């Protein structure tokens, strides 16, 4: 094989790979379905935590709340609730939501100084 042939083959190989990468990432990237809760984007996880906190304020079922947080992929649900609560406080979210989150944080013993104004 001549040097020219080798170069041509190499160029074709690289061009094919480049086209494959372009097609695989840009034109037709992997479409995920049947994902689990742990893969949700942070904003949706925060909202999920808020819903968990809302329900907890009504049923006081801490085991169920912990399970929901675990399903969300958090090994330490308390820390996740604290982080979400602080994000909501910084974002000036409605007081009712903040109090529900703090209520759950209290139960999980993860109250932070930023939550003080919202303690019952």
């Amino acid at each position, binding site marked *: 094989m001549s040097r020219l*042939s080798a170069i*041509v*083959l*190499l160029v*074709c*190989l*690289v*061009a*094919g*790979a*480049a*086209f*494959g*990468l*372009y*097609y*695989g*990432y840009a034109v037709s*990237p*992997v479409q*995920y*379905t*049947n*994902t*689990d*809760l742990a*893969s*949700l*984007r*942070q904003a*949706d996880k925060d*909202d*999920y935590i*808020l*819903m*968990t906190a*809302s*329900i907890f*304020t*009504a*049923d*006081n079922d801490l085991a169920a709340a912990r399970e*929901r947080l675990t*399903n969300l992929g958090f090994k330490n649900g308390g820390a996740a609730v604290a982080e979400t609560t602080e994000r909501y406080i910084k974002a000036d979210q409605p007081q*009712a939501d903040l*109090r*529900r989150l703090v*209520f759950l944080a*209290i139960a999980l013993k993860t109250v932070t100084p930023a939550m003080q104004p919202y303690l*019952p």
Partner: protein
Amino acid sequence: MKLAIWSVLSLLVGLGLGLGYAWGINPAAYKDTSPASLSAEHKAAYVRLVAGALAVDGNVERAKARLARLGEANSGARIAALAQQAAASGESAQTVRALAGLASVLGAGPMTPTPAASPTTTPTVTQTPTPTLTPRPSVTPYLLPTHPPTLTPPGAFGFSGKRLICDPNFKQPLIQVLTLSATGEPVAGVEVLVSWAGGSDHFFTGLKPELGLGYGDFAMKPEVDYTVALASNPSMAVVGLTIETCPGSEGQTFAGTWQVVFSQQ
């Protein structure tokens, strides 16, 4: 010519390598997904959570926005079906009630489920006098300063009446229960208890939204004496509901359906 063939083969190999890397080895990030990509099981859990949160905060628009993130049509009928599954699988009354409430706010069919009734026959059953009306338990966060609105208007239910519906179009005799607010609006998610000698069952109103948000029914069997009450006040029971015959055409008879109405005071 030979070089051309090898070039094409090289191109294809490169393409395969590229796709293999992009789809298999290092695919697009499996994170930061939206609720729309969740599995059916997790979507159902998500809907339950939305329903539970709605029962607490009463924010219908927020609930609708949350459901919209699932990326599929969540009609009242669909949520009602989920509520029926929850009831059938023995999930908590709170969960079923929340789902029924969510189904009701998502809209449903007309309120009155029954076709025009024929004249009521003389009832052979008597109603147990109502002793004391116990208020329905409401969802109350005990440490929160504000009481979130509930989907079900407060107020204990009282027995409003019953009637025998003689309609040959019904495929089987039913006990239909209607739960209404003080203003006559249907109330969904009310748990109804049905008992008879040797058995009992329960259902919720609002799980057949196409028949009305305050509607629920139970199929009757021959020669069984049924008692119907609301779970919120079992002592206020309607007793002695049995299949009654209705006069049909040409001297024939058919089984009638009982309709029992409970209204909030």
